[in-house]
């Protein structure tokens, strides 16, 4: 008995994610290269948008050994430079050298959510190439800091190999350079798609991609209108669980339940707090710190049953809005017709969200058939399309026949979900879960844009009819004029130009008549 032992060990978050790197989108060299690029780009865009800086992001991917003819996979250097606000040098080591360290745990819409994206890319690079990451940043423009960092995986701690500072040139921004084992050959298409789609929902950003052959792919700015940065909000009661509730209680300095409720939750004031506590049968003056475990559980259950809470408002969200979405669609897809539908704010489990859907029809970029472009908090989602709620909606929930869209019409459907918490199914951020509220909003928005398209096609059809009519009149009326002039023995052709929708000069008429005589 005594020699039967169970070994207990604790692993650090970074070790856990290293072991389970599939979860974060680093499953193979091609996917890892793609994920590294997008994590760094998304960090840059997040940073710029929060400070309302028109983003300029340059992404360079090059072979570590430029002259190497070695086949993929092989070490690549990825450099992402932005014109964002920069990072306070005090936080740089942790921001890049520690999993679950980040500035985005607030209830506010951003691409980053978990505090591990950039760090995972660095971690993966370190494991596969043993090279440190180099971060160059300036947050005040006066001084530029350069860090070489590695991660102590077991301790989930940064190791600072170098820290230098120089005089800045007055501009702020960050550049992250990391080395990792990648397969550009197989990742190239996805990386290209990523930039194209990014450009679609961030038409105000200037993105440049330089590939390993030194070729430059610029995505120019299509508008300088930027969405308003989101505000931070308190958690909504519907999204709360027992553990989160306990944490809020711990953070709070309030000594009565009614004051605690009305200061800790989104859109809960004293009035709603009292109504709720009455509904829950709790004493409003009770000190929240004195709640027993059972009382806490009962209270949280009551929260989920109470229907008097207000819907979350959208101030913490930063939807693109119809104008920017439209500009992005037109810029990247150059469609014959574009439509957008912006849904009012809604919520699932207490998290506010807004669904925005765009539609592109025809043009030279789209090929026949329906193509879905999925976005969440402005991140293009390129993998696992068939598992996504948007896909389910357009393939199962829409009665396409209703809209009389010609079969095989070139159609692009763009879905954008923004939320303080996107219901990703994995930390790899590739597809969204089927939340009924989300599904409903997507369905409504997709129907709306299809209705708009259907209206356009109808109008276009009748306009073509008018054009065809004018053509037919243009062919036959001159003949009728000529024959009747002859029959009537008239001296001049009749003035029927108005019937062709134009008033032509007698000379013009004469010319036309002469043509036939």
């Amino acid at each position, binding site marked *: 008995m005594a020699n039967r032992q169970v070994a207990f060990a604790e692993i650090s978050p970074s070790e856990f994610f290293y072991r389970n790197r599939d979860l974060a989108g680093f499953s193979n060299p091609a996917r890892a290269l793609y994920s590294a690029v997008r994590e760094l780009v998304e960090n840059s865009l997040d940073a710029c948008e929060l400070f309302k800086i028109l983003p300029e992001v340059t992404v360079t991917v090059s072979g570590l050994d430029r002259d190497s003819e070695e086949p993929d996979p092989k070490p690549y250097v990825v450099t992402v430079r932005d014109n964002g606000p920069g990072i306070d040098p005090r936080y740089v080591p942790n921001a890049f050298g520690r999993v679950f360290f980040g500035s985005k745990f607030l209830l506010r819409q951003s691409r980053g959510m978990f505090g591990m994206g950039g760090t995972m890319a660095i971690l993966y690079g370190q494991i596969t190439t043993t090279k440190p990451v180099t971060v160059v940043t300036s947050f005040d423009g006066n001084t530029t800091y350069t860090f070489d960092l590695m991660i102590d995986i077991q301790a989930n701690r940064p190791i600072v190999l170098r820290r230098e500072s120089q005089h800045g040139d007055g501009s702020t921004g960050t550049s992250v350079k990391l080395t990792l084992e990648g397969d550009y050959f197989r990742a190239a298409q996805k990386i290209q798609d990523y930039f194209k789609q990014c450009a679609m929902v961030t038409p105000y950003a200037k993105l440049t991609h330089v590939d390993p052959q030194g070729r430059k792919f610029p995505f120019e700015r299509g508008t300088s209108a930027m969405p308003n940065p989101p505000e931070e909000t308190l958690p909504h009661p519907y999204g709360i669980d027992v553990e989160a509730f306990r944490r809020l209680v711990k953070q709070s300095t309030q000594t009565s339940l009614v004051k605690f409720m009305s200061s800790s939750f989104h859109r809960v004031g004293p009035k709603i707090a009292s109504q709720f506590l009455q509904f829950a049968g709790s004493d409003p003056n009770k000190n929240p710190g004195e709640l027993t475990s059972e009382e806490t559980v009962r209270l949280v259950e009551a929260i989920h049953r109470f229907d008097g809470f207000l819907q979350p408002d959208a101030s913490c969200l930063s939807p693109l809005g119809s104008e920017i979405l439209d500009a992005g669609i037109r810029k990247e897809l150059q469609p014959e017709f574009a439509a957008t539908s912006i849904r009012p704010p809604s919520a699932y489990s207490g998290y506010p969200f807004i669904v925005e859907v765009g539609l592109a029809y025809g043009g030279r970029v789209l090929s026949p058939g329906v193509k879905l472009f999925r976005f969440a908090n402005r991140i293009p989602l390129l993998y696992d399309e068939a598992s996504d709620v948007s896909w389910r909606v357009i393939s199962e929930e829409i009665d396409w026949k209703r809209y009389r869209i010609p079969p095989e019409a070139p159609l692009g459907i763009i879905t954008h979900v923004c939320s303080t918490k996107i219901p990703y199914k994995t930390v790899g951020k590739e597809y969204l879960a089927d939340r009924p509220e989300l599904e409903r909003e997507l369905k409504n928005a997709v129907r709306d844009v299809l209705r708009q398209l259907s209206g356009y096609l109808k109008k276009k059809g009748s306009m073509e009819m008018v054009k065809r009519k004018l053509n037919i009149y243009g062919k036959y009326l001159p003949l009728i004029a000529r*024959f009747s002039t002859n029959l009537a023995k008239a001296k001049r052709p009749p003035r029927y130009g108005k019937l062709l929708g134009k008033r032509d000069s007698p000379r013009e008429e004469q010319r036309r008549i002469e043509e036939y005589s």
Partner: protein
Amino acid sequence: MKSTASLRRREVKQLLRQMGQRVYTDLDNAVFPELVFPSRSVRNIVYDEGLKQYILGSSSIRRSSQNIKHIRPFSQLVWLAYFVNKLVAEGKTSTLRDVFYSSQAYNVEFVDQDESDEIITDLEEVLSKAREDFSVYPEERSAIFGDLTIEYTVPGYEGKKLNLSSHPDGYLIGPSLSTAEFVDTSAEMVLAVEKGGIFTRFVEEKVHKKFKALVIDTAGQPPRSTRYMLKRLHQELGLPVYIVTDGDVYGEHIAMVIISGSANAAHLRELTVSSAKWVGVWASDVVKYKLPSNPMTEADIKRAQELKKDPRYTGGIWQRELDLFLKIRRKSELEAFSKYGLTHITDKYLPEKLREAKGM
């Protein structure tokens, strides 16, 4: 005898000009021109008891150049008016087929001849004139023989005269004959026969002299130009018309169309000779003259039953003969008289039947 041909030509030209002026004025006022004429749909063909012929009812077609479906036939109709106006002015004629091909030079081409024939009928309605009046003739032609002097009005032959007994094969009833003036005749009747063989027999047997008759070969169901000729002979020369056909339901119907008109030409009232008489061969003649006969076919019987329901066939000999055909279920051709010798038909049958017909 007055010159009806030139009068008719002037009238047609006048009608064509009026039509052109209507269209022209509308266009000049920036109004989409339209033409209204009676509908020829089956529902609008009605039998007129008083006229004893089919005529068109009161519903009409409004063909507007504004209607995208109408503008092409509208243009074709105006083109046709323009085209026949030139024909009439130049004294030329054209066949139905010519019209079909001529359209192609003017960007108003017809899909097929059926379509151009339709438009020709439309113009007949718009003008209330038969196509022969505006110089359009069908291809099939029948013949006339007898003592009638005509004077041509067609270009190159104006003033030229001809006696229609000069050539034993007879003369084609074509455009030049249809437009010729009647100068002189000694004839006292017109004998219309259904087929060429009997026509030739009649000429050989000098029927024109014995009966003082103009003989016409209708070549089966007579073309409209022939019916028109019969009408003119009756109207202008006051000659009674007698019709001789095979002894079957089709022969009976040939006579009926000459007398009461056809549904196809319900829009034209100038083609019938309502006083014309069918002298035979009747079903009762088949029996009475013991003519060699053949059994009626299924199609013959069906046709007889159809005609029994036709309003033109009410009363008189018409129902009676149909009933008899259906009873004996046999039919005889005119040639069957040859059984009794080649001249039997002219020497015996015809005089007897003419006497009988005159008494009707």
